[in-house]
């Protein structure tokens, strides 16, 4: 009788303990998981290094070691600090500040120990960091006719392929419009950095945000 009692008590205690542990860890896990998901929603202005795998896989692959940052010869790449809107410790760059110089040997990809930056990227021209979009046709000097500017075109490392100045005509007025060819654009951001208007009139956007040709055919 007595042993039966203590047995029942033990089982009750055991189940109680399990519920206690599983319950508290589920609460913690939910909070951590939600925070992890939330902090993984990268803002459009933060561009991942060349070769970065799809954003939803990136935060599971990147160990936030910063080796890509260290091997970037132009100090383009930064590691997100805690409290910024990019997932803590993950690499990114702001094209307007320092764009990607499209090194032929792609040192950032070579440095990545986890293949978060995929070794499949062997030709930097196949990089797909984003795509440039003429976001400010109302401020672009060339479009508005303020000046014969073609700063973005000149800045582009693969000009005439990724970007051309297309002749347009509205009534009697002829002007040249910077035109991005998404299938060639790597999203390096040289055009965005080169743009002379106060707020860049051409910007690199993540490809899913850019309304462009059918998309990149690599």
């Amino acid at each position, binding site marked *: 009788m007595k042993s039966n009692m203590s047995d029942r008590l033990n089982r009750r205690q055991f189940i109680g303990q399990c519920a206690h*542990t599983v319950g*508290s*860890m*589920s609460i*913690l*896990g939910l909070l*951590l*998981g939600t*925070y*992890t*998901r939330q*902090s*993984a929603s990268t803002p459009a202005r933060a561009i991942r290094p060349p070769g970065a795998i799809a954003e*939803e*896989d990136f*935060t*599971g*692959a*990147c*160990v*936030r*070691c*910063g*080796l890509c*940052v*260290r091997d970037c010869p132009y100090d383009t790449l*930064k*590691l*997100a*600090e*805690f*409290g*910024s809107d990019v*997932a*803590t*410790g993950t690499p990114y760059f702001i094209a307007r500040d320092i764009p990607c110089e499209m090194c032929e040997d792609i040192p950032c990809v070579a*440095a*990545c*120990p*986890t*293949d*978060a930056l995929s*070794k499949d990227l062997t030709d930097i021209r196949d990089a797909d960091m984003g795509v440039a979009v003429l976001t400010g046709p109302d401020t672009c000097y060339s479009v508005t006719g303020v000046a014969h500017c073609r700063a973005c075109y000149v800045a582009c490392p693969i000009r005439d392929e990724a970007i051309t100045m297309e002749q347009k005509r509205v009534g009697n007025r002829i002007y040249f419009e910077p035109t991005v060819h998404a299938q060639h654009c790597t999203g390096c951001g040289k055009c965005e950095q080169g743009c002379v208007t106060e707020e860049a009139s051409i910007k690199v956007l993540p490809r899913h945000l850019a309304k462009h040709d059918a998309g990149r055919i690599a």
Partner: protein
Amino acid sequence: MSETAPAATERGLWQRNKWLLLRRTTQFSILFLFLLGPWFGIWWLKGNLASSVVLDTIGLTDPFILLQSLASGHAAGQAAVFGAVIVLMFYLLVGGRVYCSWVCPINVVTDAANWLRNRLKLNLSWQLKKSTRLWIMVMALATSAITGAIAWEAVNPITMLQRGLVFGMGLAWVIVLAVFLFDLVVTRRGWCSHLCPVGAFYGLVGKRSLVRMNAPERTACTDCGDCFRVCPEPHVIIPALKPEKDTDTSVILDSDCTNCGRCIDVCDEEVFRFSTRFG
């Protein structure tokens, strides 16, 4: 006078703090090696505690971070796996939680909190179970699997602090301060000895590790309690120092022991020393 307390006078300041100083030197040296690059352009050690490259040849990767990456569904790169194997082998040899007391920068923070807690005689302590950190480790792995992201790295104070110092702090001070205050006013030795899943992981790694703390001179013990007071995991000492049978081993085999060596420092009877797990 000297006859009543001979041991105390024989052991100088150095002997009473040797392992603590060696430990601090190691912790700061590792941090300094990481800072040589950004500060002086000397890239002997590149990266951070998550993954690094030594002298441009040997890659090292934190196995717990890699494990979360694997749990998230990413087939990790060769370099990372190889780097994690090297790290695992090292800690299998010297003791898993050597990471905690000899490498981890948060250890300096929590030791400072504990020192201040003792100075201010803050005795209130919210009781937490030792097993909590194991469950948090399981939770971190499960959350990684469910969200597809390396979950613990979103909040991990260790890499947050170390990455912050080497790459840029941001608001990481907030997390470090939180850990400090937690250990100071909420729970004695709260973070490292109860909650941190990284320590729990390295504890598991060190289950069968070679280098151990030993109490070969336990018969000289005067029950002063100095080692218990200073040890971050005092329960590990009991089976070795106060065995049920005299034939029981004097080796501390509990993998919660961080091999910090502070017990050697504080024991005037020189009961403790490092040894292998075989004695």
